[in-house]
């Protein structure tokens, strides 16, 4: 592993969806978008709603294809716009926590969390121990047999998060994962996420439209423009860790950083 080589690099990425029948070409959603993420970095991205943030993560996760550009994983090209078949999750190396929790309603919490391990044939003693440990770390122990409809919004979000952590992909993409929960639950979820990330070993690309969240969580904040999205600014966040997320506005340097990012977005 070459330390000078970024974990993930996106170069000149562009995307337009196929035109609807009878219409001219559809507009670009992403245009010449480039950025990189270092090993074990917590990168956050903010941008206005509808900027194409989800489209960007879909392309990195190879759920969707690019129209132009390349993506490198530890220096190796993993995706180009040459029309080759997509490999969603790229051999389980790229985790993806989506906006909706997407827990399968017919599987219990435990069956949901262990599904990726089972699909990958890795549901062994080590996998089980890891799942139990993550359930404990997110206060989900004791709810293993609950079905998703019996769980609160926050529990479902935590379950979706540890479902991806359980199979241990080195990089995790997160698309506004804490969107539809109340403010207190959201702070709790952010704390949980940071605590799990402090253990090390994980690179995170976290997309949000909430400037405060982006600054509170990230090592670096990238600002995306309105559609077609490209990176228009980058800010290194020097607020020292661990950060008290219950009181982000009191964190030293938070106010200035918030102002700077807000100006870039407009």
């Amino acid at each position, binding site marked *: 592993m070459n330390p000078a080589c970024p974990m993930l690099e996106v170069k000149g990425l562009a995307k337009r969806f196929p035109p609807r029948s009878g219409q001219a070409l559809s507009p670009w959603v992403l245009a010449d978008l480039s950025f990189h993420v270092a090993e074990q970095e917590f990168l956050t991205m903010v941008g206005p709603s509808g900027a194409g943030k989800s489209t960007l993560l879909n392309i990195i*996760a190879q*759920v969707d294809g690019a129209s132009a550009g390349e993506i490198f994983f530890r220096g190796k090209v993993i995706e180009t716009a040459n029309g080759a078949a997509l490999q*969603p*999750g790229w*051999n*389980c190396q*790229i*985790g*993806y926590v*989506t906006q*909706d929790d*997407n827990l*399968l*309603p*017919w*599987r*219990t919490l435990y069956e949901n969390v262990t*599904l*990726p391990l089972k*699909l*990958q044939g890795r549901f062994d003693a080590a996998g089980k121990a890891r799942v139990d440990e993550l359930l404990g770390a997110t206060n989900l122990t004791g709810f293993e047999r609950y*079905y998703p*409809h019996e769980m609160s919004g926050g529990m479902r979000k935590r379950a979706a998060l540890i479902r991806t952590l359980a*199979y241990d992909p080195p990089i995790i993409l997160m698309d506004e994962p804490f969107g539809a929960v109340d403010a207190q639950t959201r702070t709790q979820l952010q704390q949980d996420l940071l605590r799990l990330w402090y253990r090390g070993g994980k690179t995170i690309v976290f997309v949000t439209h909430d400037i405060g969240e982006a600054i509170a969580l990230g090592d670096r904040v990238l600002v995306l423009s309105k559609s077609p999205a490209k990176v228009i600014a980058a800010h290194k966040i020097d607020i020292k860790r661990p950060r008290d997320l219950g009181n982000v506005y009191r964190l030293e340097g938070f106010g200035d950083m918030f102002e700077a990012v807000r100006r870039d977005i407009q």
Partner: protein
Amino acid sequence: MNARGIVDRIIVLVLVIAGWELCSLYFGTIWFSSPLRVFNRFGAEIRSGDLFFQASYTLRAALYGSLLGGIPAALLPFALRRHPIAGAILDPYFVGGYGAPKLALAPLFILWFGVDLEPKVALVASIVSFLVFFSTTAGVNAVNAQYVSVARVFGASERDIARHIVWPGAIPYAFAGFRVAAPYAIGAAVVGELISSNRGLGFMIQSGATDFDTTLMFVSLVTLTVIVVVVNYLIGRCERWLLRWRPPTQRLTSRVVGT
């Protein structure tokens, strides 16, 4: 159901029986038999074992036909999901087959398969298969695309997706198909027997009609109704157990007796 509701239901039952009794008094028992005669004959037919024999014949035709027609029909949509072109080619034929009046096929099946169980099984299968097929197809098409794409990110193969995402999501729909099909299945078995048979509840109705034995006809009809209600109840129980993962308000189950 509270006590009041149960009392109201009993009142309706009493009114229906009283109306029946009035009809038989006014028109004569030769046309309407009477509740008491039917009740007594019902007991007699049970004691002689005849009712059980005839009912089990009809039930067997309905059950075999439902399995023979329903199981392939519940599996076919999964195969067609992987072969959308074949699905598009066949679609109008399925729609046509669904629209065709299958009961009109009964004489043909009797010509082909004789007068035993086989033509009734074929008739039931031809009806059940279309109902289950269209219902299951709706379930397969309703699969949540997000679940599929998330599962792919987790490393799921196409087979995993069919097994872990599409199949569990389509089960409620397949069940709804079987539930709708159950009364038709029993009805089709009876129609087959009415046309040509020497056994079954349909035969019982037919022989009652030839002998002007309306009591026997009513005994068969009541038995058929009870069977349909019980079968519906059993399917409902089975469904509720299989779909215990659903929030109660989301259940697909239509309001059918016994659920």
